[in-house]
């Protein structure tokens, strides 16, 4: 058991740090979060820079144009880019982390050649059409229907929670192709061009007042059969293969960010004076901040454990454990921030010389973490049933 970089890992880290130090100062200001065309330009320009420097698709195999890095190098990449304040994947998220890996694993040579290079360079943006209004945690009960008509599938239905739909070129779409089969067996994975006729995108206004997600409506949308990835009715399995690309790194940037925020919060608490005095002098508050600091340090250690497991082919339990514990810790951190900021926490822009903009907006945003990508309740079911072997509630 060790926590040191090997010589190769150290070299990788040093080279990356040098590149970031050289590259980041020239990066323009971040666009406002409601400026979607601006966000696409910003995120894809960064992706292009990563590509030119050989860091795009860090975890993708080299045969598809990726770097083929080890899980530990993948971890170092995410850690160092976050520490340096580099942009995260942004609108490239679905392409790089989900659709790309799926096509790389399950796609035909033609499909790979058509999409993978463009995803890596940031030329092609993807969104995800999985969830439906009546298929959330029970995703496999989705009803959006695709019926074969010659060389095309004709799609009718309704998707929701589609991130980046306004700026996407393609959608990874799950459709029901066999309504009579058991629910996991009648699903197909399609690549859909977002300029297809019959498609309507309606942005959803989140509680942040931003349009991170959209609803997508399908009225006889025609998708070529050649855009199907994997076999018809095998879409559920196709969807699952992408998980093997994650290799324990799903929360690296956020955990690194949270460790920083704990230190920031301590500094703020030493500065803030409320009617009860300097916030940091409040022993209970101070200990709560330190306690959360210990949790984020432990989550960072658990991340390293998961990455080591991925690198050595050891089946581990860390993915659900990390998701569940990290997301709840992050919410508690934001609530703690509000305790420190006191009345200033009522502002979503900076006020009284305090970073209330970041803290209060993120406090709202963090509400989504325990819901998206498998609610905390679903994670507890997964842990209880798949790891601890407890019986399912029904059946």
């Amino acid at each position, binding site marked *: 058991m060790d*926590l*040191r970089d090997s010589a190769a890992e150290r070299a990788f880290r040093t080279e990356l740090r040098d590149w970031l130090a050289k590259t980041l100062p020239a990066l323009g200001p971040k666009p406002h979060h409601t400026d979607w065309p601006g966000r696409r330009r910003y995120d894809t320009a960064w992706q292009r820079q990563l590509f030119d420097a050989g860091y795009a698709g860090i975890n993708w195999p080299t045969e598809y144009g990726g770097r083929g890095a080890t899980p530990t190098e993948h971890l170092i990449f995410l850690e160092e880019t976050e520490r340096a304040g580099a942009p995260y994947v942004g609108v490239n998220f679905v392409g790089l982390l989900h659709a790309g890996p799926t096509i790389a694993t399950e796609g035909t040579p033609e499909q790979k050649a058509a999409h993978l290079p463009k995803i890596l360079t940031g030329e092609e943006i993807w969104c995800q059409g999985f969830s439906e209004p009546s298929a959330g945690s029970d995703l496999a009960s989705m009803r959006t229907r695709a019926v074969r008509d010659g060389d095309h599938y004709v799609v009718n239905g309704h998707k929701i929670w589609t991130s980046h739909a306004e700026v996407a070129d393609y959608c990874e779409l799950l459709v029901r192709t066999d309504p009579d089969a058991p629910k996991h067996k009648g699903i197909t994975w399609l690549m859909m061009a977002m300029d297809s006729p019959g498609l309507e995108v309606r942005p959803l206004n989140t509680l942040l007042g931003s349009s991170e997600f959209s609803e997508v409506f399908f009225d006889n949308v025609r998708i070529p059969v050649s855009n199907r990835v994997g076999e018809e009715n095998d879409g559920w399995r196709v969807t699952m293969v992408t998980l093997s690309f994650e290799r324990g790194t799903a929360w690296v940037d956020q955990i690194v960010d949270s460790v920083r925020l704990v230190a920031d919060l301590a500094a703020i608490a030493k500065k803030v004076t409320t009617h009860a005095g300097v916030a940091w002098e409040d022993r209970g508050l101070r200990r709560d901040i330190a306690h959360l600091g210990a949790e984020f340090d*432990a989550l960072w250690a658990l991340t390293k454990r998961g*990455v080591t497991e991925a690198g050595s082919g050891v089946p581990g339990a860390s993915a659900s454990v990390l998701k569940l514990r990290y997301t709840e810790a992050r919410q508690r951190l934001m609530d703690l921030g509000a305790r420190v900021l006191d009345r200033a926490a009522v502002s979503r822009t900076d006020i009284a010389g305090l970073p209330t903009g970041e803290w209060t907006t993120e406090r709202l945003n963090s509400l989504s973490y325990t819901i998206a990508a498998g609610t905390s309740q679903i994670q507890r079911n997964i*842990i*209880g049933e798949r790891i601890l072997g407890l019986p399912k509630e029904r059946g």
Partner: protein
Amino acid sequence: MYFLPTDEQRELQRGVREVLDSAFPLEKLPGGFDAVVWSTLVETGVFSLRTELELGLVEAALVFEELGRAAVPGPLVGTFLVAGHADGATTVLEARLTPLTVAHLDVATSVLVLDSGGSRLATASDVSGVPLPEPIDPLTPLHELAAAPTGSSIGLDYTRLMNEGALLTGALQVGLAARLTELAVAYAKSREQFDRPIGSFQAVKHICADMFVRTELARASLHSAAVMLDDPEAGDGARAVAGAKLLADEAATLNSRGCTQVHGGMGFTWEVPVHYLLKRAWLQATEFGTADDHAEALAALL
């Protein structure tokens, strides 16, 4: 970076588990301190891992997790800490705490007095105290002392002893937390109500899931602290060990509660072993710094 036990470390841990599973199953727990088991641990090299087997705190933490999982009664941590300086079972007196209490005085040959002004070793038979009639953990007898014994200096650094003691006590707590999860899960699978195992109900399943998660988090923290104490270049050992003891205490005490709750009425009886583990967790939560002490120490580093 390789943040998993190596094959050798896994083998060591498995070996200790096998020894304890046969020599000290939970059914033997009510008997308390067991001299035969203690000799087996001594012979196995549990306490001399570092001094004779030239292993580190990572290995010690893995072994102490197993001791915690089996809830072995005895002055485990003190005996490990003084290996190479004193022979025989050694109990710990934390001189900064009031009331002054010391565990397992009757079976110890030495008392390690942990004092920020200078740690020292006293002969147990020279130390007199009043036995507590009802210690929280019925398997860990406690004596109350009027004053800390003088003893003689062994030249071990106080901070280092506290850090190592916190690490090993944290390991015992992680082991307990894991055993409590095992017991809760086993009971939830076998106990039926409303014609089905209670573990099928999400209200019970989620208690078990949280117990598992707490243990995994505390274990990752513990292992990271062990690596850093062994290898200071890997990170800030003092910060890591404070976090590890805090999270290990939390895992052991909250899992005690969870396990009791999952056992329902039986959990409130002397009939099932859960209460022994709970009481040990509460006792160990006061040793080598409470969660609050460690939170304060971490706050001072922020």
